[in-house]
């Protein structure tokens, strides 16, 4: 059966429609959920040569999206295996923020811009509250639904953060949206990287063009310094300790007003706080949402009333070229291949922490007694109570005398908490 058969049913429930494009790890196509009548987007995850099972990036996305349910985050509706491939069912999104920024026929008022950036920050705030870093914030990962809601998508680079001393790769984000600490090689970073990227998106909405389209990492830093000046020690005390730090010729910051003649004072104030050099001093997403920019006039436009690209996609007999917006002549973001970097595989060795150290205790006992694998089926308890009680260690456990004694002792009376 041909894969492109438009009427083909996928796993009974979904009626396959046209292909929407090529995603990070497989084809995305439009489908109708025959149970609800809802239009959905289905990502088919290629399993490659079946060497490493479900794609690592896809698994990350599944894992995180199952925990992240929010109006401003793309909803993973369902997942199912079909013909050996895993399929992810997402809510169908009409367009993305990049298409809107680029569409010359769309006029964005200050209230519209405020609405878009507010929705972006709301989605991001929810991620950060759940200790998830998005790490790939850029306009074409911000999808716009039929109801005008903006939703964060593409969590293939996202990670759970919050453990102290966790080291991550700095090869994240499209270059234009990369925070200076990443460009200087920081491996331990936090929510600030997403804030910087959101700042770039905010600026892009105001300018209707990429704010700092660097061609190389060095060029990217050059552009940042050109606008914000080289960071001083007072501004960013930890800068010189970053792995790839090299001193740059000092340059003075230029007033943001020169770049954004139309923007309000509040907008510029928020923007400058999102572009604070020191990640620790940079405004948090939550603080940004509480900034007076969002409470001052004009108030953010109701999402349902936001301008939308002309609905050429809805034509009865759409041509593929109509759908593939990413192949248009004025591609704003760098090509996908340049942007994507494989996630690091260093995981377990750099993340070693207390758990591992303590666990050695258990491991040693285990190996001592488990020398003949298969014969001795028992991995001994991590806690060998018989050692503490200097009893013969035939089988590591608490003996029944100990247990009843302990049970009695455990049954102390506690005052009920209020």
């Amino acid at each position, binding site marked *: 059966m041909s894969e492109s058969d438009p009427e083909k049913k996928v796993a009974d429930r979904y009626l396959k429609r046209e292909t929407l494009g090529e995603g990070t790890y497989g084809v995305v196509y439009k489908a109708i959920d025959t149970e609800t009548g809802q239009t959905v987007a289905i990502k088919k995850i290629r399993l490659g040569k079946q060497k490493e099972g479900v794609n690592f990036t896809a698994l990350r996305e599944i894992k995180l999206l199952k925990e992240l349910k929010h109006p401003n985050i793309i909803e993973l509706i369902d997942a199912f295996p079909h013909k050996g491939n895993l399929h992810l069912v997402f809510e169908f999104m009409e367009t993305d923020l990049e298409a809107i920024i680029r569409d010359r026929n769309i006029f964005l008022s200050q209230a519209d811009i405020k609405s878009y950036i507010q929705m972006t920050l709301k989605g991001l705030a929810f991620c950060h509250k759940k200790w998830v870093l998005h790490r790939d914030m850029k306009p074409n990962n911000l999808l716009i639904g039929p109801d005008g809601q903006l939703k964060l998508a593409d969590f293939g680079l996202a990670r759970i953060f919050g453990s102290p001393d966790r080291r991550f790769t700095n090869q994240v984000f499209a270059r234009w949206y990369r925070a200076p600490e990443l460009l200087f090689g920081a491996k331990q970073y936090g929510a600030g990287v997403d804030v910087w990227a959101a700042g770039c998106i905010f600026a892009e909405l105001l300018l209707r063009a990429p704010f700092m389209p660097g061609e190389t990492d060095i060029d990217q830093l050059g552009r940042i310094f050109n606008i914000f000046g080289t960071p001083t020690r007072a501004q960013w005390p930890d800068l010189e300790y970053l792995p790839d730090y090299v001193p740059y010729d000092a340059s003075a910051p230029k007033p943001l007003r020169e770049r954004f003649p139309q923007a309000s004072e509040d907008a510029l104030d928020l923007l400058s706080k999102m572009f604070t050099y020191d990640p620790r001093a940079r405004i948090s997403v939550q603080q940004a949402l509480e900034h007076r920019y969002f409470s001052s006039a004009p108030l953010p436009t109701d999402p349902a009333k936001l301008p939308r690209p002309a609905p050429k996609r809805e034509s009865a007999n759409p041509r593929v070229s109509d759908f593939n917006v990413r192949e248009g002549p004025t591609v704003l973001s760098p090509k996908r291949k340049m942007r994507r970097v494989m996630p690091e595989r260093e995981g377990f060795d750099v993340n070693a922490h207390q758990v591992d150290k303590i666990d050695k205790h258990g491991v040693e006992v285990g190996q001592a007694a488990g020398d003949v694998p298969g014969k001795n089926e028992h991995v001994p308890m991590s806690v060998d109570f018989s050692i503490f009680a200097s009893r013969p260690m035939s089988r590591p456990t608490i003996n029944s005398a100990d247990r009843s004694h302990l049970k009695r002792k*455990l049954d102390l009376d506690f005052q009920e908490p209020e």
Partner: protein
Amino acid sequence: MAANFWISSHFKQLLDPEEVDVVHPLDKEKGISLEDFKLIKMHMTNYICKLAQHVKVRQRVVATAVSYMRRVYTKKSMSEYDPRIVAPTCLYLASKAEESTVQARLLSFYIKKLYSDEKYRYEIKEILEMEMKILEALNYYLVIYHPYRALSQLLPDTGINDISMTQLVWGLVNDTYKTDLILMHPPHLIALACIYIATVYRDKDITAWFEELRVDMNVVKNISMEILDFYEGHRLITEERINAAFSKLALKTLNG
């Protein structure tokens, strides 16, 4: 993630003991008792631990793998989902989900090295096929919270800071994975129960500290009792009993 357990899928999926201690009808048909069921899960937990030592992954990965396996068996039968393939596959999946990927090739190599018994032998292809089935059985929920993080915050707070005490508590927490506690209780309460047992065992009175916590100590005490019951029961586990349980599983039913 620790601060947000209460809004996690893990919290929403916590089960009551009556929901966990259910032998699947297909297994029951083969004569698998609740004891057999628990025994096999414990045996497979040990198997995951052993395998993990060889492929060298963090304890967190082991804990997640065991949680996956135990969750699978709240929904699926051992007759259809052979524990000897489910266990290593859970370790494989957990290693990916916890960002410490282990190659399926490596896993397959150590399975063969550890067990000469061909019932344990599975090819890479079979692990990858089972991965998909396990994802489905888990309904794609992959984030599991563990007591370790709560422990590293709570233990220093108790004022106990000698190494042997810390080791005792960490060991107790590791042992809780030989039971289904992680499916039934919030991880910080499991951590508290382990601290509780350890302090009572070592005659350290921190009752005042427990009383200051805003937790229901009756729940903590109940968890502690369950852990102690496990230690008691563990004495009676012999290889023969495990083999007997597995041979029941191998029986063909009349209709099958």
